[in-house]
């Protein structure tokens, strides 16, 4: 499955568990904090992706990085998967 699609599915899945209402049209430019998912929900998204993909790009980075948009978030995972392979 294409990575972005997988992240979108996981996002929807954790939003339900975290009891958050996602905004309708999430694009690359959508600011994560305005997507409807709260900070604990993002922790769950990172946790679920770690279980599914076997990577946590944020822990692997030497410095703290916080993506602000959905596009940046996907891009960080894409780069981490390339490095892991």
């Amino acid at each position, binding site marked *: 499955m294409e990575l972005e699609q997988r992240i979108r599915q996981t996002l929807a899945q*954790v939003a339900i*568990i*975290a009891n958050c209402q996602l905004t309708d049209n999430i694009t690359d430019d959508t600011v994560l904090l305005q997507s409807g998912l709260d900070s*604990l929900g993002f*922790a*769950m998204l*990172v*946790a*679920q992706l*770690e*279980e599914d993909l*076997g990577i*946590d790009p944020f*822990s692997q980075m030497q410095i703290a990085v916080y993506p602000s948009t959905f596009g940046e978030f996907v891009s960080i995972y894409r780069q981490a998967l390339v490095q892991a392979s």
Partner: protein
Amino acid sequence: MNKLVIVTGASRGLGLAICRQLLQQGYTVLALARTLSSDLNALTEQYGSGLTFVSVDLSDLDNIQPLCSEMIKQHGRPYALINNAAVGYDGVLATMHNSEINALLNLNVQAPILLTKYLLRPMLLNQSGRIINISSIIARTGFNGLSVYAASKAALEGFTKSLSREVGKAGITVNCVAPGYMQTEMTNSLQGNKLESIKRRSPLGRLATPDDAAATVLYLLSEQAAAVTGTTITVDAGSTA
């Protein structure tokens, strides 16, 4: 019951008592320690697959994330984490070596925080879990020669309160158990007059035992403790009353 509980510092003292009581109540245990003590080995022989020993040095902080990933991969999402591993160097601060201060803070504060960070994640996905940090009455009372140890335990209590607010809505409770002086290898240096005086002055006329403190940990793990979070339960035979 198949609930998986991860216990650090499991080879001796309180950690060992916690493992024993967990197994008696049917929990599945991942017992973390640097070395497999003969007592812990006896538990693995008695309970078979109920207990798995994981040899690890938690002062190697860089290893904590891969360790957690591996444990989750091998054993599934944990129900609970018991942060029990600690060192208790005593000595006056003015002459305590900086390397000892560092080592103590790494093992007593940073390691439990990092373990909690990575083992909390699967609990968030389960929307259920328990974090129990082993503090000490020393976090709130003074004791000559234990200032750095006291700082580490007070840090855990502060960590516990704020984290309980952070993860409460995900169905995860975070608490501390603060034992008083117990007769374990950690308090060996307290033997003799000091220990006798602590016993004499306690309302119950004795010390709390590792089993007393372990029973409180088991309570906090239970369904009955679902409404208890962000607090510290003292088990000290009344010493600080």
